[in-house]
């Protein structure tokens, strides 16, 4: 049996760890080394963080007939998808944060053609961040520099162990950087969260707050920074955090989705203001912790092409409108979902409303998920970075080329989108 060793880039999360070693035998994946449980689910059909729970891999296109999904040829599924999207008055293309950049470019092309709105799956998380940058300016450092130089790290509403598990060992906490050679011993680490998470095991300071206390805590920190009013903070831990932050030489605030669950716009505005204020005397960066593997690639594309990291809507007369407000699904009468599991994230009432209105959903996915189970048409896709070559942007915006290692008969996301464009 011919056994082959290859290096692989993991598409499990925005870290895009490129130090995975895989063993291939007879065109099959046998073993993956250096991978986290999160990443493992990209290569073996298992559930995220639960490697013993199997996930169903989609291998044939499906179409709903008499309420049941049935296998159909690719051309039939493609025609039906083109018909659904082409006949829609207000189509929506949703997701894309877990697809490669070539597919994202094709999706943007499709959105232009069918005059659709293109909605990044994590808009509610990223839009407040970009809003904050617009207001406070930016100090941006790639993870390479953060790993080498950051001596103070604050996680706000983020638990990388659950969203991007190897972030801690590769970039932010335990990594031995060029000028942080002792890893975690050369860094001060703190976290702000609603729960006592696993982060408490290595954070020097974990401030646990109640929902809704974020802004009060940020105000309290501001009051206790040098030059602040010094008013007694309303939230416990503000004084300690202010002291923690002000002793940094090179600091970074990693924020996660938790920062945007409650008053996201205001919290990110305050975090941006805090980073800018700290940055007047020291070096401070504000950095979003993207769980999806190519979220950064999508926003990069939108910035490059449209000048706004927001959801573009090509369905308006007089040109494209961009919106930072998450989509109102009531407006739309057909949805194409790829690179995300829409029905997993959607609140139950909205999911039910979509089903009640019988909004047809076309789903492109390598695995079965809640969205594929509700879809009218399902187009199975090759796994980017294993069965299809692609480009993806790491969470710091550096592009990496994902290789094709395994043969497959399934088309890549981009190929399906280009076929759809042609079929319209």
């Amino acid at each position, binding site marked *: 049996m011919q056994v082959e060793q290859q290096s692989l880039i993991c598409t499990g999360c925005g870290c895009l760890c490129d130090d995975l070693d895989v063993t291939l035998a007879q065109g099959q994946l046998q073993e993956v080394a250096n991978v986290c449980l999160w990443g493992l689910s990209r290569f073996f059909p298992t559930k995220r963080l639960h490697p013993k729970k199997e996930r169903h891999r989609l291998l044939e296109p499906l179409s709903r007939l008499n309420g049941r999904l049935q296998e159909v040829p690719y051309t039939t599924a493609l025609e039906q998808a083109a018909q659904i999207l082409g006949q829609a008055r207000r189509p929506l293309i949703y997701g894309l944060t877990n697809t490669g950049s070539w597919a994202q470019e094709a999706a943007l092309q499709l959105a232009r053609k069918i005059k659709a709105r293109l909605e990044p799956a994590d808009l509610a998380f990223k839009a407040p961040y970009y809003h904050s940058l617009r207001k406070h300016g930016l100090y*941006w450092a790639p993870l390479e520099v953060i790993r080498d130089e950051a001596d103070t790290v604050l996680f706000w509403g983020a638990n990388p162990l659950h969203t991007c598990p190897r972030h801690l060992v590769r970039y932010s906490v335990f990594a031995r950087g060029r*000028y942080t050679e002792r890893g975690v011993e050369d860094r001060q680490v703190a976290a702000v969260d609603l729960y006592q998470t696993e982060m408490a095991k290595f954070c020097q300071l974990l401030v646990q707050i109640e929902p809704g206390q974020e802004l009060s805590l940020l105000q309290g920190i501001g009051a206790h920074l040098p030059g602040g009013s010094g008013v007694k903070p309303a939230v416990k831990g503000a004084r300690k955090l202010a002291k923690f932050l002000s002793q940094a030489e090179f600091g970074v605030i990693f924020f996660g989705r938790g920062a945007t669950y409650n008053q996201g716009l205001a919290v990110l505005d305050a975090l941006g203001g805090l980073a800018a204020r700290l940055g007047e005397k020291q070096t401070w960066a504000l950095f979003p912790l993207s769980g999806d593997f190519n979220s950064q690639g999508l926003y990069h594309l939108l910035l490059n092409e449209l000048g706004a990291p927001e959801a573009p809507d090509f369905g308006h007369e007089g040109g494209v409108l961009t919106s930072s407000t998450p989509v109102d699904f009531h407006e739309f009468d057909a949805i194409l979902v790829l690179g995300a599991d829409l029905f997993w994230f959607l609140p139950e009432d909205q999911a039910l409303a979509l089903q009640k209105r019988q909004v047809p959903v076309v789903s492109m996915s390598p695995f079965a998920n809640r969205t594929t189970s509700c879809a009218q048409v399902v187009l199975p896709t090759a796994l980017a970075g294993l069965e299809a070559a692609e480009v993806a942007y790491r969470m710091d915006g*550096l592009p990496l080329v994902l290789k094709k290692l395994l043969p497959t008969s399934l088309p890549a996301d981009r190929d399906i989108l280009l076929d759809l464009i042609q079929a319209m």
Partner: protein
Amino acid sequence: MNIKITGGRLYDPAQGLDGVQQDLFIKGDRIVSSLQKPDRVISAAGRVVVPGGIDLRGQVATYGLNFLRLWNGFPSLEDLGRLYAAAGYTHVHEPFLTLYTAGYVHRQLAAIPLVDTSASLVLNLRDLDNYLKSLDQLEEVAQTLKSLQEKTRSLDFRLLEPFVRYRQSFYSHRTLDTAKTLEVLTRLAREFDLRFTLEASPEVLELPCPEPRAFHLAVLGRAVTDDRLLELALARLAEGVSADLGFESPIAATPLDGKPVKIDLGGYSPLDLNPAAGDMLPALRLALAHQGPGLAFSLGGPVRNPLEEFPPLFSWLCDRRTRPLVDAQDLADREFSLMDWVWATRTLPAKILGLGDRGHLAPGARADVALFELPPEIPPASWAKYLGRCHTLLKAGETVIENYELVAPKTPKATYYRRRGAKEGPLLSEICQYRSIRPENLWVPEELGRAWVELD
């Protein structure tokens, strides 16, 4: 296609053609001395015919630059390509590519249509500090630099910080001052056929330059902040150093309203993408005071819109009455001729980048030709209006702009880099060992660009 451009006034400093009315012949992608049967004749009556422009320092694809679009402070890559072509440019050189942003820069450059591209590899001398101190390892350093240049697909080397300094006081014993660094770079240049672009600073100007041809001083205008530094800059240019002006952009970045936009590339200081409004007069004074061939045209910051930024600067150079009045009394009366303009925006940039078949109109040159509507009677005061927008642009013999309209939006383009054939040594492994990306992913693969052209 065989093309004859007839009736135009040719300006080509490399051949000494100063407005000579002469026909120009193009066969395929090359300029030829004569042609039997042209397929197409382009009338250039009343127009000047010059080589395609080369922006020596077109900051268009720097890592992090796309953030400027948040404030509407930067055009899309598609628009950038069109704006450059409309201004008569066929090549743009990005100044800031680093070891780990190489892939990013190349992907951005590949997305700029119409114009060819290339980039400078910014060296972080902290990667080499111990090797620079021990002079008997210079061959290893030279081989490593050549290897890095090839692997990052860059055209030349650039130093933003010609010194080794650490932000962490713990490493202060490993610092290297500018004088010592320049000494080592000079030896590297002499012994191993290397050339370095230094971002100019008063500190660099103060130091002697024993090997002028080994260095190009970028953004020299910014460093010339007083009369003494101006004298030093002129002395360096007289010694044979080449330089570019680094005009501060005349377009105010108002939407940013002074907000910081800083990108940390791992150097001693971050790259400031929204610097405070600078003084344009030093670059202008330098341009007018220097009489020799060593000064190329460039902008000091991100190129926001060549169609709006370049014409006023040309205007100041070509017509003394349009120059900024404040503190301008001591400016020389000199006015740039069209030959000076072609030299600074075409001929010299091509020489500096080592693009031997560009920047001139001699037979054998690539047929990158720009035609500007500029009747002879137009006074220099109005040149800028005419020279800011080209009437016809040919790139490699293909018509890209005709009668001010873009006619070939899919014109092929390529990214140029230098192939060195250097060996990989232990220093390269040492540099790579600190990276979070494996070397095979650090080096720029084919897929991140579109078409590549290797230069020897």
